[in-house]
């Protein structure tokens, strides 16, 4: 069972305690944006087979949103961080690079 550590309350929560919130770091496009931008924001997804950044809510715990880096092919979790962070920290990216050299996710990536 998938277990994530909530960065807010520090609890190691299994997935029945959490609710998944889909892809992280989406830039919101609202009224006034182009059709292409709105479509991209609403529907187009990275959906990678490999390292992925995603949103979670500690629904049956502290109730707060956080983000996680996880490999979708193996469910290996690289780390979690508060949803207020606009980008994953370099230390987290280095952790991903250490086990998945050459990974890419949007314009985040590790050196091969």
């Amino acid at each position, binding site marked *: 069972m998938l277990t994530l550590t909530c960065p807010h309350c520090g609890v190691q929560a299994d*997935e029945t305690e959490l609710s998944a919130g*889909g892809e992280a770091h989406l830039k919101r496009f609202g009224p006034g944006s182009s059709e*292409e931008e709105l479509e991209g924001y*609403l529907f187009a997804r990275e*959906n990678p*087979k490999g390292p992925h950044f995603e949103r979670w809510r500690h629904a049956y715990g502290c109730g707060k949103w956080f983000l996680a880096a996880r490999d979708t*092919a193996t*469910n290996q979790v690289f780390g979690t961080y508060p949803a207020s962070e606009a980008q994953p920290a370099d230390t987290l990216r280095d952790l991903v690079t250490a086990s998945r050299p050459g990974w890419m996710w949007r314009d985040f990536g590790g050196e091969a």
Partner: protein
Amino acid sequence: MRRYSVFALAREGFRQHSGWDRAWSSPAPKSRYDVVVVGAGGHGLATAYYLGKNFGITNVAVIEKGWLGGGNTGRNTTIIRSNYLQDPSAAIYEKARSLYEDLSQDLNYNVMFSPRGVMMLAQTPHEVRGYKRTAEANALQGVETEFIGPERVKELCPIIHIEGPRYPVLGALWQPRGGTARHDAVAWGYARACTAMGMDIIEQCEVKGVHSANGHVTGVETTKGTIGCDKLAIVVAGHSSVLAQMAGFRLPIESMPLQALVSEPIKPCMDVVVMANTVHGYMSQSDKGEMVIGGGTDSYNAYTQRGSFHHIEETVRALIETFPIISRLKMLRQWGGIVDMTGDRSPILSKTPLGNCFVNCGWGTGGFKAIPGSGWAMAELVAKGEPGPLAAAFGLDRFREGRFIDESVAAGVAH
């Protein structure tokens, strides 16, 4: 290729069955084909088959990274129905269902289509209203369905507990010509028919890249070398986003595990398919006697082909409430497939930003039932370069234009 028939069976019976041909060949790839189909599952093979049968295009390769029919075609719960709310869905699923009716004769391969009837239980007043609406829509679409009351449900499926504590059965949407088929045989039958038309089915051949020039596809890079093609059809279900990334575009798809499980075989006790969408579970009995059970998808993206254990718990808990008879059944096997979910829970059959590259994906949790209709519509799209009437509504542009085919409301969780 020799036809299967009662005479062939008799002839082989007299010589220790030594003269059967291989059902399909798995040759080394040629350097170039008119059409390369990526994915030798049901949808990919059906696409190739109808390209040959309906359009005379037989210089076709179907390439597959694993083994034939080893993805979702071999992992589903084999339910076939077409009782959808929206007109475009009803059209393509009903086309598929009607092709299933004589698919065994068409392919000369017994796919064991069993139109035993499918019932979708209504267990809340909201579902009653929803299914009555679907029944009316189906009447207009020419799909034979009927809303039946709880007494009729009990009559058709005596092992159902009608007056369950949480969700009593208030009725059901009944499609008498829905049913099941032998999932592997569908893939094998199409593969054999494709080989008979001279197509190449290349297994253990993973696509590593897509070649293009001037905005048009020119071929694919694979683990068995470069294969050139005029047209490319990407029919890979859960891995569609991975292939799309190679071809240089994004899809409105998220891939999630969906699990199924089977019990130990028991005596025949249920001769219909029952789906209970409110409580997330569906069940039918296979010809071997196993109860075949499916539930809902995981809530987060993954390619693990396993799925989370608590989803099995939820599914089994819901089904035990509806079918108390199964409470002591032992489960034999459990597995997961990776389903490709779109925002509106409807499939994508479409041209792509890359010229002469087409995608068929997004069938989500209900692709098996659509295999013949999907292949039929996809073959037309690939052959003509433009979608025909069945595929027209399922283009990628619908997400930009807001023209959704909203089946997530119509069918709840189970498709």
